[in-house]
């Protein structure tokens, strides 16, 4: 009896596999948006209850840094016009007050930055102001980390990071903007 030759299953032609894969690859390459979602994180203050009596907590004048921005994108910091480039330095000096200046904050814990802008202020400048204030706090924290522990803030254990963050607590109070004119 003739024995059948064992031919096995025929191999699948994989020659076009690369083409198919390339096609899919190109599709995903084109549709991909490497969207890096980054931004300045802030926390809004909760809306006051309507029946809540207005309690205007009086803060000492020296503990508040008033930042006003008008519709023409000009800054007024504690009554003096200031360029955005100087804001960080001014804020750092105000918060830390290394020279114990009686017009600046008593201690970083008591420092409050009050920000008020006009409805006509450009969004770009508003972000720049937020950015500079945040930068001021971040630099102060970093300096304290270097000073106290000799390490950069990110390399410290969580508890010490928390301690430094609480020492330089970012308190920005935003007033309702006013429509003072301009567009």
């Amino acid at each position, binding site marked *: 009896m003739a024995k059948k030759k064992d031919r096995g299953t025929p191999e699948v032609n994989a020659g076009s596999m690369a083409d198919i*894969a390339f096609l899919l690859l190109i599709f995903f390459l084109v*549709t991909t948006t490497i969207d890096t*979602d*980054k931004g*300045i994180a802030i*926390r809004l203050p909760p809306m006051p209850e309507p029946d809540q009596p207005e309690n205007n907590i009086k803060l000492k004048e020296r503990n508040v840094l008033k930042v006003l921005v008008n519709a023409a994108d000009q800054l007024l910091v504690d009554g003096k016009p200031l360029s955005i480039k100087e804001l960080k330095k001014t804020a750092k000096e105000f918060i830390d007050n290394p020279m114990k200046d009686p017009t600046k904050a008593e201690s970083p814990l008591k420092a409050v930055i009050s920000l008020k802008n006009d409805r006509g202020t450009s969004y*770009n400048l508003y*972000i*720049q102001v937020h950015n500079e204030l945040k930068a001021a706090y971040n630099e102060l924290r970093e300096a304290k980390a270097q000073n106290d522990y000799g390490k950069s803030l990110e390399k410290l254990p969580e508890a010490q990071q928390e301690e430094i963050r609480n020492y330089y607590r970012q308190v920005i109070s935003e007033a309702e903007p006013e429509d003072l004119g301009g567009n």
Partner: protein
Amino acid sequence: MKLEKKKKPTPAISTSALPDIVFMLLFFFMVTTVMRQTDLKVKVVVPQATEIQKLEKKSLVSYIYIGSPSDNYKAKFGTAPRVQLNDAFATPKQVPEFIEKERAARSEAEVPFLTTSIKADRDAKMGIVTDVKQELRKVNALKLNYSSSKRSEVY
């Protein structure tokens, strides 16, 4: 006399590993791809900043776009900056409704971690941004992120 050398054809490069390589790349892109869900109807060029943080969980972020209508919509909607929620133009008054819908789509445990990202054009005015902010405060959506791109130079 020199012996004539036999001309050898250059050996073909083996391409059998090519599909594997391509598949690897393919899977990489498939995994990292985030399909754009909304069609932008407003022009947004986000401002630049240095102190930026990454948004952690993309599934817990709702986006509010603010900017002037793009060219296709200029004729109908003008050039004044507008708010876009999902796929449609909206007014700041519609923000609470939008936030409620976003919350309803998530499980209850995730709601406190919901973040709102405002993607506003750098030329927009604060008036419209403030209106949106006030609406967000009304519905207690307090975690906010002002979308911005990285700027390298520092003032």
